[in-house]
């Protein structure tokens, strides 16, 4: 499974801003905003059951993401 974590829209992202400022210098025009996030690739034993998904979601809200500043989504990847 993959857990994608992104900063909430209202939280300042200085790293994203620095990337957005660098891209036009490299010739990538028309980019108005970059938000930097992170993703966690999690391997586990057995099939991706709904129980397993619920468990990973619990881990994401407890440790992988800080719900005060971040949102997360969990997706199953074969």
């Amino acid at each position, binding site marked *: 499974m993959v857990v994608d974590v992104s*900063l*909430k829209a*209202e*939280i*300042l992202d*200085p*790293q994203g801003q*620095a990337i957005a400022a660098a891209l036009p210098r490299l010739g990538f025009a028309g980019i108005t905003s970059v938000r930097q996030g992170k993703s966690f690739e999690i391997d586990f034993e057995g099939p991706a059951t709904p129980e397993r998904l619920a468990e990973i979601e619990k881990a994401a809200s407890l*440790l*992988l993401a*800080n719900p*005060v*500043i971040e949102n997360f989504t969990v997706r199953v990847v074969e």
Partner: protein
Amino acid sequence: MRVGVVTFPGSLDDRDAQRAIRIAGATPVPLWHADTDLKKVDAVVLPGGFSYGDYLRCGAIARFAPIMESIITRANDGMPLLGICNGFQILCESHLLPGALVRNHELHFRCRDQRISIKNNETSWTRGYALNQEIVVPLKNGEGSFQCDDTVLEMLENENRIVARYVGRNPNGSRNKIAGITNERGNIVGLMPHPEHAVEDLTGPGTDGLPFFTSLLMQVVNA
């Protein structure tokens, strides 16, 4: 009075915190992150540094250290708890304080003597200051920008829970120039600058930080 200082793997300022406690007239008690015993301390300081390498998010892994469970329980019962810099980040990750500390707005690591103004002198750690007293203490952080949503910010402002604000230019983009906050009860304080580095003229910019540690003793005398 016995004041515990937790050492996590990657803590840097635990020795200085112990020294500040000793200079203030209390007994510093070293605590280890992997223990659960608080050794009969009356208060705890979470020092600055890079606990667990700041992996994942600053303070995110330290928050689950075995010692933190005991500290969170005692702090919820009213034990004075001060988190400095990385300690402040741990308090936010533990949800003992609201909000979060993120990367400085200009991505610079800030290291300088910083002027701050004490905005709440009724907490366990700031009783020794006058209201609006300006002090100079070292500031050194890369992820010290205090962020929260508008609702939380309004609550902190309305409930007088902002302990200190930066004076002059905002060094890291913190909302409303917040340098430190407290919980509702005033026993838990999180602070980004370092009062423990300003307790002796010889080794710091002055002694402006000392009242953070002597305030604790005032509370005992008054009780």
